[in-house]
């Protein structure tokens, strides 16, 4: 028992990166900062949730299609059903890599196999660790929602009993069962597929792109549809009109509906149904996990899959071009890097298009209600639309630019190989920079092209941005991207993380990427907010100010990188 407990302790410490030997005040400060940041995000999330919750609590009348009777109802139950469904999807996405790491490709497995530990102890320790992490995740996401619901329901007059509060810990414990089952079930086909597929990196890249783009399109489409409907007809009418569709969909997810019933009814019957069905699912999940683990455990751990790639005759190319090709190949063949490198660049034009549609819809609604026509579009309203386009570009662009901030760290132990090459350090840095910059430029051009195309939405044409505004947007986005890329590379050159093992580790431990994201997002807010609020702010030459600021930022960062890269690169060591 003590061995299993030691293993669980070790696994949790490893997973949460708790290291007692390190600088204690710094570690505490990091945890505090993470906690504050997490709480800030949660506060916004809960506030939005409470607002939505208050809105959907209002009742409305609907006709039951089966018997034609009028019913007075709300969509709170359906709302909670979808909340649990979304939570389970999020938890599944969080769980899958953890499951893969612990059950399939655990780094520690080979070491542990040499020790006097039975596979049963190891499996119990691993499953317990995974489950504890999942409960923590559930607590982080669900607890604020459940507390907020309890507190605000009391305010709004509904009585929330002691059973509701007592049920919360049980709910947090059983909530991870469903995603856990889905996760272990999915690992089987993943394993089978990976044995057949020759080029895994292409599969991973394709999956990431499809998932990333698909999620964005579905989300943005749903958002624009909902905004359009709400703006046009009002929330209450919409809820009444679409009630049965939403109700039927929610009923289809019967397991999640059981959770919603348990939360809203909080009676022993609904709790029993939720608990009983969860125990059955837990039993199935455990059986599958044991089977899966035994399968992996019995495989030869030292066996590595041989990946053969097509050979090409060695045609001579220029050193710089060869360096560029090498960089590109090492990026796209790593699932982690290719995700960071390509996904954000690909989704940027889609996000920009969808956001401009949303802005267009809300502008149209203003015009419809005021009885004006589109030719009366005021400067301030144009400015608002421009602000939305800029904001949508500047929110995604730093995510893509942050990839440059691991350009040097990516080399890891290979940094020696870069340093002995007869290619100037400055050229190597510029190649790495261009590799990140060019796709962003292309993506920006595509995004601008998409928002230049007039879009017809139900008899109205959304006003497109003018040519001068398009050029201005291009200049601001591209120069800001250049500035952020140079900044990321400078920070990475100053303190690269060459000792990290694996692409995921580098991404996690490199602070330069975080700094790029922070600066990019602050600039996004600072530059787009005045444009969005120009109607109530004093008139200022905002476009000139924003373009001036980005020019100064990009110019400074590029100059600093140009002058200091040789010196900084010379100091870099693999450690």
């Amino acid at each position, binding site marked *: 028992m003590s061995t299993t407990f030691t293993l669980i302790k070790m696994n949790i410490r490893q997973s949460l990166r708790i290291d007692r030997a390190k600088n204690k005040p710094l570690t505490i400060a990091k945890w505090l900062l993470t906690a504050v940041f997490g709480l800030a995000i949660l506060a916004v999330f809960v506030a939005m949730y409470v607002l939505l919750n208050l809105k959907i609590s209002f009742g409305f009348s609907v006709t039951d299609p089966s018997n034609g009777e009028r019913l007075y109802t709300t969509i709170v139950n359906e709302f909670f059903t979808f909340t649990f469904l979304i939570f389970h999807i999020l938890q599944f996405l969080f769980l899958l890599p953890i499951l893969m790491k612990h059950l399939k490709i655990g780094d520690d497995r080979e070491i542990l196999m040499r020790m006097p530990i039975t596979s049963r102890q190891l499996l119990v320790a691993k499953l317990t660790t995974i489950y504890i992490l999942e409960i923590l995740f559930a607590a982080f996401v669900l607890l604020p929602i459940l507390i907020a619901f309890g507190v605000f329901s009391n305010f709004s007059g509904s009585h929330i009993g002691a059973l509701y509060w007592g049920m919360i810990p049980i709910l947090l414990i059983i909530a991870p069962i469903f995603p856990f089952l889905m996760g272990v079930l999915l690992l089987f086909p993943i394993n089978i597929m990976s044995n057949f597929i020759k080029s895994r990196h292409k599969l991973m890249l394709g999956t990431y792109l499809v998932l990333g783009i698909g999620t964005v399109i579905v989300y943005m489409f749903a958002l624009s549809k909902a905004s359009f409907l709400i703006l046009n007809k009002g929330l209450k009418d919409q809820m009444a009109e679409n009630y049965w569709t939403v109700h039927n969909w929610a009923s289809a997810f019967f397991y999640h509906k059981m959770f919603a019933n348990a939360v809203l009814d909080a009676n022993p019957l609904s709790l029993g149904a939720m608990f009983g069905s969860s125990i059955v699912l837990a039993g199935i999940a455990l059986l599958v996990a044991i089977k899966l683990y035994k399968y992996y455990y019995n495989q030869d751990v030292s066996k590595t899959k041989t990946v053969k790639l097509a050979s090409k005759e060695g045609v001579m190319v220029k050193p710089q071009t060869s360096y560029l090709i090498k960089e590109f190949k090492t990026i796209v063949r790593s699932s982690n890097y290719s995700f960071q490198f390509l996904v954000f660049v690909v989704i940027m034009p889609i996000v920009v298009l969808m956001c401009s549609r949303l802005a267009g819809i809300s502008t149209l609604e203003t015009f419809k209600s005021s009885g004006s026509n589109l030719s009366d579009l005021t400067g301030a309203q144009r400015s608002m639309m421009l602000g939305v386009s800029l904001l949508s570009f500047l929110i995604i662009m730093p995510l893509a630019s942050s990839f440059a901030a691991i350009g040097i760290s990516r080399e890891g132990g290979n940094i*020696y190989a870069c340093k002995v090459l007869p290619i100037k350090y400055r050229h190597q840095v510029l190649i790495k920079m261009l590799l990140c910059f060019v796709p962003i430029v292309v993506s920006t051009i595509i995004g601008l092209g998409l928002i230049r195309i007039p879009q017809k939405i139900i008899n109205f044409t959304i006003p497109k941005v003018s040519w001068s505004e398009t050029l201005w947007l291009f200049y601001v986005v591209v120069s800001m991207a250049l500035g952020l890329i140079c900044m990321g590379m400078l920070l990475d050159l100053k303190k690269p993380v060459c000792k990290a093992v694996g692409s995921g580790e580098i991404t996690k431990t490199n602070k330069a990427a975080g700094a790029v994201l922070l600066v990019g997002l602050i600039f996004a807010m600072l530059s787009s907010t005045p444009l969005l609020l120009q109607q109530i702010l004093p008139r200022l030459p905002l476009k000139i100010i924003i373009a001036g600021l980005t020019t100064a930022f990009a110019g400074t960062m590029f100059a600093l990188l140009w002058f200091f890269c040789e010196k900084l690169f010379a100091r870099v060591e693999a450690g």
Partner: protein
Amino acid sequence: MLKVRNLVKIYPGAKRIAANNISFDIEGGEICAFLGMNGAGKSTTIKSITGIIPFNRGQVLLNGYDIQQDPLGAKSQFGFVPDNYKLYEKLTGNELVNYTADIYKIDSATRKERIGRLAEMFKLTKAMNQQIGSYSHGMKQKICLISTLIHNPSVWMLDEPMVGLDPQSIRAVKDYMVEHAKSGKVVFFSSHALDTVAGLCDRAIIIGAGKKLGDVKIADVNKQEGGLERHFLDLVNKADAEYQAFLRQLEHEEQELAAKHGKAKASAMMAKRAQDMALGKISND
């Protein structure tokens, strides 16, 4: 071909000099070993010579090219196999070697002939189209060796090259070293395998505690009683005793300074003194 003059290297913030006034010349046709205990400064010296890390004083000339004044010219002259042989694991062996060939501007016909010959020599022909990530320890070492030889460098530098290789591959490396030296080029490698050095090299440079302790002709020491091993251990043991006394003296001085100025300031003063010594501002005798 390789000239090292008064090389001094101290790491930023360190209290002792890692490579202290090291000088030697190696002419074409020689196989020269670089010997020393762990932490003696071998890797620091090799990294300084290859331009991987900057050094504080001195000069390194590779075929007449100064590594500090003309780094690109100097880097074109050598091939370097590091001790960690980290590689781009997502590339195939062929891709890595062709990439290196492009960097050194080797034409298609020459590279094809060299890749074929070297892959055959190191028994890696079948694995050349596999990703390096799937290679074994020894195979990674071999592909690293091949990629450094693709441009037939004037100076072939290797940091502990035999570690992890199978006997057949060790033989192949030794044979290639001899062949490379016979063609009038330099082979310079660090090693702990004294028997290999005694049987293979023309010369050995021995360092300890960052200082050059000796530069011996292998043929001469092999004639002496105990051979290279005896000679090496005598030199390093003597140097180690002196170095331990030096460290005790430094510790004593730091304690005295700490009593006067506090621990943190004393530590900073000691580091500053070492840095000044390395830069030649004060004598380092």
